């Protein structure tokens, strides 16, 4: 059984297939058709809804793609859709701004934009261009070219009028407190079951008793198996309510990030420590995806591209794996075995990710190359971290995504650098060594020749950036 607020109305679902997405629940079960399906793969944002969640006894509003969200994850939360924004027949200020600025043409993407803008207004304090672009990067519009939509965001974020959500805030808060889960919840229908434990011990136990279960964190990848590959997932264990997996702890020498921390919540700590990591996270899918997708999930799905692993590999990150009551800590490098294969054993899961703190000798940079700046998967993602002393390379951690079947360290390249003077000759021999490290493939994102060429060029760029940090040589720095 799950309980959640559909706007202000308490809904209890006892008998519902946990494979149902929020989008299909809205459109097919409730007949609420304002939320649109544009792709059912989390790439267009037409299905964007806002979910209110109790965090530190306040309501936190975030956007997510309802096509990739299983309905079971709504337990204890508030779901707000485009139909809920009008108040007494009057358009909400974000809706009115979209009308006034001519922000809709065909209108099909519009409900998604409205919801992203609504969350932007709720979470922001005034208009900020960068925040606007970040909030709307996961919403595609094919008609307008975006200019009037940005204008509408500016207009609606510049006026801070109280809306019905503000007026009902205390009541909603009380309702959310009342339905906050206090034990493992289960949603099931037919032969499909989904569990949502609250503690890591319960999770470990459940996973041991259901070794075939699929772990559901953000679901931004897992849900594609249902919506795109048309599979049914008979048993899921949702880790998004496991308190211990949702913490970020900073120690003198390391940061420990719980596996179920959404990427959005990794941003502050990682960007503070490694500004480039922050920039990478900004371009990691879309805000809707980052609000749901987790660092643990990004590692656990073992994609050959996955944007965070190359960066984490170059930083020497570790993962803490847990099975039952026992845990083990391994280097991330040893976690990936082969294409979508990891060392994780049956019933074992990632508990946390351990990232070393930044230090004086840190020279970490990461570059993502893709056809589109935002919300695209890398053709190549290269992460570099050299330690230098007296003009000599004393240590090198270099890793790439998109170059092999797994995110991988460039060992030959590193060897060509370590112990050598940090000069152009060394650089070029290290570039050459990349061909020994990688035999990339050609696909629709890039040819193997391009991948190999830019892998080397990124190393060249890295050296230039270290040599002349004042010179901005990334296109992103100029806009």
């Amino acid at each position: 059984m799950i309980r959640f607020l559909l706007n202000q109305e308490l809904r209890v679902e006892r008998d519902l297939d946990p494979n149902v997405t929020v989008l299909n629940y809205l459109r097919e079960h409730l007949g609420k058709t304002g939320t649109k399906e544009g792709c059912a793969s989390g790439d267009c944002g037409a299905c964007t809804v806002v979910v209110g969640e109790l965090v530190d006894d306040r309501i936190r509003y975030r956007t997510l793609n309802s096509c990739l969200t299983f309905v079971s994850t709504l337990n204890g939360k508030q779901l707000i859709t485009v139909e809920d924004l009008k108040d007494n027949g009057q358009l909400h200020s974000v809706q009115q701004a979209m009308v006034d600025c001519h922000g809709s043409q065909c209108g099909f993407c519009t409900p998604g934009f409205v919801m992203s803008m609504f969350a932007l207004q709720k979470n922001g304090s005034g208009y900020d261009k960068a925040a606007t672009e970040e909030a709307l990067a996961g919403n595609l519009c094919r008609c307008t070219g975006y200019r009037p939509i940005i204008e509408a965001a500016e207009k609606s974020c510049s006026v801070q009028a109280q809306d019905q959500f503000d007026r009902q805030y205390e009541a909603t808060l009380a309702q959310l407190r009342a339905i906050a889960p206090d034990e493992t919840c289960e949603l099931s229908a037919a032969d499909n079951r989904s569990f949502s434990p609250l503690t890591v011990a319960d999770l470990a136990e459940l996973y041991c008793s259901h070794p075939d279960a699929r772990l559901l964190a953000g679901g931004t990848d897992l849900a594609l198996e249902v919506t795109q590959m048309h599979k049914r997932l008979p048993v899921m264990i949702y880790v998004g309510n496991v308190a211990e997996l949702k913490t970020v702890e900073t120690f003198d020498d390391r940061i420990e990030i719980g596996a179920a921390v959404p990427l959005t919540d990794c941003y502050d700590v990682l960007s503070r420590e490694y500004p480039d990591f922050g920039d990478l996270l900004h371009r990691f899918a879309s805000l809707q995806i980052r609000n749901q997708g987790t660092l643990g999930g990004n590692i656990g799905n073992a994609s050959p591209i996955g944007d965070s692993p190359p960066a984490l590999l170059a930083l020497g990150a570790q993962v803490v794996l847990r099975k039952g009551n026992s845990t083990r800590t391994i280097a991330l490098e040893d976690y990936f075995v082969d294409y979508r294969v990891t060392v994780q054993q049956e019933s074992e899961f990632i508990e946390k990710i351990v990232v070393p703190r930044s230090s004086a000798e840190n020279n970490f940079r990461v570059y993502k190359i893709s056809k589109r700046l935002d919300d695209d998967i890398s053709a190549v993602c290269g992460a570099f971290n050299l330690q230098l002393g007296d003009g000599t390379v004393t240590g090198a951690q270099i890793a790439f995504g998109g170059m092999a079947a797994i995110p991988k360290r460039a060992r030959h390249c590193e060897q060509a650098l370590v112990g050598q003077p940090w000069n152009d000759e060394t650089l070029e021999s290290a570039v050459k060594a990349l061909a020994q490290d990688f035999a990339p493939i050609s696909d629709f994102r890039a040819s193997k020749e391009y991948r190999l060429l830019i892998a080397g060029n990124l190393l060249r760029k890295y050296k230039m950036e270290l040599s002349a940090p004042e010179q901005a040589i990334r296109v992103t720095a100029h806009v």
Partner: protein
Amino acid sequence: MALVRQDLQTGVGRKIPHESAAKHVSGEAVYIDDRLEFPNQLHVYARLSDRPHARILKIDTAPCYEIPGVRIAITSQDVPGQLDIGAVAPGDPLLADGKVEYVGQPVIAVAANSLETARKAAMAAVIEYEDLEPVLSVEEALKKEHFVLDSHQHKRGDSAKALAGAPNRLQGSLHIGGQEHFYLETQISSVIPTEDNGMIVYTSSQNPTEVQKLVAEVLGVPMHKVVIDMRRMGGGFGGKETQAAGPACIAAVIARLTGQPTKMRLPRVDDMTITGKRHPFYVEYDVGFDDDGRLHGIDLTLAGNCGYSPDLSGSIVDRAMFHSDNAYYLGDATVTGHRCKTNTASNTAYRGFGGPQGMVAIEYIMDHIARTLGKDPLEVRKHNYYGKEERNVTHYYQTVEDNQIAELTAELEASSEYERRRREIAEFNRTSPILKKGIALTPVKFGISFTATFLNQAGALVHIYTDGSIHLNHGGTEMGQGLNTKVAQVVAEEFQVDIDRIQITATNTDKVPNTSPTAASSGADLNGKAAQNAAITIRHRLVTFAARHFNVTEEDVEFRNNHVRIREQVLPFEELIQLAYFNQVSLSSTGFYRTPKIYYDRDQARGRPFYYYAYGAACSEVLVDTLTGEYRMLRTDILHDVGASLNPAIDIGQVEGGFVQGMGWLTMEELVWNPQGRLATNGPASYKIPAIADMPADFRVRLVENRKNKEDTIFNSKAVGEPPFMLGMAVWCALKDAVASVGDYRYAPLIDAPATPERVLWGIEQIKQAMARDAVVETA
């Protein structure tokens, strides 16, 4: 009286919002998939060919029926009427008939109580094939003369002689990529069987009449049995001109066979796999020019990749040929268009309809000439512009009238500070080893009218009810472009009433029959005029009546701002309507319009296919990373001609949206097929349309002011749907400009479209290699 003196606030020329804007933002606008379903609703899923070219040996649908919830599985054998749904020429079987010709061709269709069940059942069918040799590349098709339709040629003068005698000569070739429409709402139709073997079809289509005709044909019934209702599309862009018919016809056949309401909505991946796209083109050129870069002669071959069937490729390749001059006088010209057949989805209409590909070809040539002569490409472009009194006849013998390209360019050059910025960019590039900037200013001249002349007609229907409220219907379709809003403004203007008095209604074939597709940018031109004619008819009746009734002359009756002034007396509009009703005046009228002046003699390849031209120009500045090929759009200035705008807000929206879509086509939107002919970029995860940060950081769009269309178009406006799309060429040329800076502008970057970061980097590498080669030669 004061009210009457005021101007109408919602008539022609006003920036009023889209008629559905408030419904779009609240989620209340109803698209077809949002319609209430019936208890016995069927959902359809089509099983697609996984072979590019094969004979079908066996289809066994028996396993489909083992899945609970399945109602029916059909093959081509089950279609009661005609199987072929080709738009102009046959070649498109509704379901594959004995053979498949591309990966993605629908072979069987299964209906069930849910889409998921229908899909599961469709995948359970057994289909056996015998593979045949496919043709997958346009070059191969061209070499083998494997065509879907005959080739066509425009010829003026003796291009061979001009080429031989020209001071300079260049040859080259170019690949231009296709483009997925990526309308946000995928193809969908929902069909309800009615008595007398009839059908009501709710379809997301730009072409209701054609859907009506094809549904009637596949069912084997007369057209009068079929009613099409089309309220709004979630985007069209040409993709729903012919290819909305497939789902409508399949759903109709199933509805006929089962007697149940049937819906077919394509999941995104299926939509991208089944339906055709913008035609990729392969271009070969041989061009002769003087030392100023002015063309003496050109021999241009445009080979469109049509996919497996004709669809609209005849007219599309024609339009590519008609636009291979863009704004330039070509000199002695031979332009040849081929319609190549490949085993891919049948490519179709897409904003610009071949025009963009023809224009990209000539812009590529302009850049090539400029680099060869070491000149600023803009200078070469301007040297080649059509003149006003001379050099003003196209290679298909239409005189370019009301030519404003030179003034428009001059104005944009000044307002964008092109010269200063070009100097600054050259300076930036000298001191910036990795990042390079590029700038380009490119023109657009786009011919307005369907080149199939008979399509240039439209109808409308206007009723005024006794309370003074107005019902408006016309043959055009609303896909987001604001057509309904503009047509309502026209009617509002004619009656001098506010637009909220006018109810816009779904395009419906039993209200306005025999309509043309909403395409070729013609929606407002044609339907605006038709609706205006309907309104004028009723207004004339009202004036005649009022003059007689109040015993005044007709000149004494004036409609103004929701009122009617009859000499000194002022009546609210609705009172006159009441009065007219009680005096037995007809308050309903149809309206009709056909475009004058146009013709095209295909045998002679001569004529005036276009009523007029729309003009525009864009100046774009970009920044390129020469280590990775990545780029950003820094700034774009646009000046675009819409005549006297019917609605400047909507027109600006078309210009901005068209530009960004055109930019996407030429930059990041790359269609990739695998060696087996399967589209690899079959969803938004792999096919990237511009997102919000791809819009130019500094984006300045203006409409040409105080310049009415000289032709008698609707309130002297100009069409705006397609022309701005080609403004995106400025970005592509600016990218090439940035790349050219690597070789000090002495080498032409030979970059095919789209200029993905990868192609940009190869362009840079190619120039570096050429420089290295030349350096070796110099040393030697």
